[in-house]
């Protein structure tokens, strides 16, 4: 039965075989998004709005980075706040150490914060990536709490719960947010481009193979340990940069804001909502959820109820939209096209389908020529 369905799909499947048809639309769509993102703070220049826009981009970039490892490999990590926090503390410590004053210069430290986060990802990954599935999730949460505790207790470096100050930016008024906005936009674009390259490379295919069947992938020569760890580091690098920009924006950091458990859950939730393993998914998720959580924090944050509501949203997404929005919409569109392209054929009995390969001409020489 399944076979018969496929013979049809492959004939009239616009999704894959006719991917070329979508290409112009895709390019136009992404360009439009880019232009919209660039002009947004110029059109809506109120600081209240650009602040929300800035936070949204932070989460979009961090979610995209999270997705590069977690979405493609299927390893759901709930400890990326470790990298966010590492980025925060790195920029704070380096700026203090080098006596960097507010202005554009602190942004030059941001890549270093990314590198620091990627280095932190090595011991983290070596420990956590030995485990799989639920155990992996639990281990990442545990490691997150270890780092938060370290931030509280290594007072010589982090100043414990009294926190660290960052250089004060010289900008004021309604242009204050703009440098932050555009720097995080650049990081977001880099993250999306990286995600795209990974998705279409052999390296990304190996991550997807790991998601489907890690042991089988190993038995096909994929060095799974190395592939997972490097993707984990790449993911950490971008999240660390996000943390650094965020820290400079908020001006002072504390163990519980830099290493924030809510951050762990939120970026995962955004990727789930938008569509795990898709490029647009985390962007869409951040675009929808960040303003919502921001609103919840402001309106009911005092009572802590915002966390309850976020938890309910998480459950609802997992139950109602397990695939996420992007794959669901894609499927909807493709199904419509498939119906238009290939009119349904009555399913044939399975027997002829199974013999179907026999009807393919087999050119023995083609393979013969390949080997020697």
């Amino acid at each position, binding site marked *: 039965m*399944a*076979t018969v*369905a*496929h*013979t049809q*799909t*492959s004939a009239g*499947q616009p999704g*894959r*075989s006719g991917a070329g048809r979508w290409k112009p639309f895709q390019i136009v769509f992404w360009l439009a998004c880019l232009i919209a993102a660039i002009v947004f703070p110029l059109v809506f220049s109120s600081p209240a709005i650009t602040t929300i826009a800035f936070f949204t981009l932070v989460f979009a970039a961090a979610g995209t980075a999270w997705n590069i490892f977690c979405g493609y490999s299927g390893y759901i990590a709930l400890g990326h706040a470790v990298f966010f926090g590492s980025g925060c503390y790195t920029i704070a410590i380096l700026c203090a150490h080098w006596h960097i004053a507010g202005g554009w210069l602190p942004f030059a430290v941001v890549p270093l914060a990314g590198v620091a986060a990627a280095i932190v990802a090595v011991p983290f990954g070596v420990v956590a990536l030995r485990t799989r599935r639920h155990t992996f999730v639990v281990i990442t949460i545990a490691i997150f709490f270890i780092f938060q505790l370290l931030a509280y207790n290594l007072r010589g470096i982090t100043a414990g719960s009294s926190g660290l100050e960052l250089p004060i930016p010289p900008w004021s008024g309604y242009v204050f947010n703009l440098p932050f906005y555009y720097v995080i936009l650049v990081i977001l674009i880099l993250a999306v481009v990286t995600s795209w*390259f*990974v998705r*279409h*490379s*052999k*390296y990304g*295919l*190996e991550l*997807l*193979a790991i*998601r*489907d*069947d890690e*042991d*089988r*992938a*190993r*038995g*096909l*020569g*994929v*060095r*799974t340990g190395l592939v997972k760890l490097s993707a984990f580091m790449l993911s950490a690098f971008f999240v660390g940069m996000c943390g650094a920009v965020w820290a400079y924006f908020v001006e002072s950091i504390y163990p519980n804001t830099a290493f924030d458990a809510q951050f762990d859950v939120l970026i995962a939730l955004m990727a789930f909502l938008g569509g795990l393993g898709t490029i647009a998914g985390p962007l869409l998720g951040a675009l929808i959820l960040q303003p919502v959580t921001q609103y919840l924090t402001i309106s009911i944050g005092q009572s802590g109820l915002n966390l309850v509501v976020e938890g309910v949203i998480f459950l609802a997404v997992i139950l109602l939209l397990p695939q996420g929005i992007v794959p669901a919409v894609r499927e909807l569109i493709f199904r419509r096209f498939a119906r238009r392209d290939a009119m349904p054929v009555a399913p044939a009995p*399975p*027997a002829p*389908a*199974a*013999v*179907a*390969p*026999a*009807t*393919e*001409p*087999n*050119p*023995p020489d*083609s*393979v*013969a020529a*390949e*080997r020697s």
Partner: protein
Amino acid sequence: MSLLQATDISKAFGGIQALNACSIAVEQGSITGLIGPNGSGKTTLFNVITGYERPDTGTVQFKGADISKYGPDRIFGLGIGRTFQLTRIFPRLTVTENMHVAIKRKGLASLLGRWSASSEHDRALQLLQFVGLTHLKDAPAGSLSYGQRKLLELAFILVAEPQMVLLDEPAGGINPTLIGQLVERIRELNRQGMTFLIVEHNMEFVMGLCNRVMVMHRGAKLAEGTPEDVRANPAVLEAYLGD
């Protein structure tokens, strides 16, 4: 010297002695059959050879080098490919994507190059044609029928051009017409120099295809010889009937 030599392999799972000082040797260029009753340790032996299980004792040598401590990725890289008794493919990747997993790409090409634009792409498509799955190349592999999955698993191993292929029950659940084709294809690859070690319960398949047959019983090799020898061996019949 044999291409593959496993010497005195023992492997226990809890109280079960799956392999008990088992030794086999596979000659270069042969199609060797490995038969035996259910639970006699055939799959476990495959797992040990391909690095999925560490033997408790004993060594595995491939082309004279000791590979007993290598992992599956390294062993595949040395030129031993295998299929699984319960076929294992990547269900959420398309058939074509499945074909590309085993293709090695080095350095920057693996990071920046699109696999679909690689020079190996043609070879992947040719192999799909070789096993008759071209018409399904864009379908998700998870939607393939049982027999088609077996063919796909065979094809994506071949794409890396291994020197030796281990097949665990390749004919199980495949219709007779297709089995005939499978036999043809294995013979042809063998003519080009590929060595096969095949576990199979279908006796007709084994006796018709293999030039050497080994019989496993209770974790050790019971008998070995040409298909005729093995068929005539009373101990083999007893192993299958008694217990």
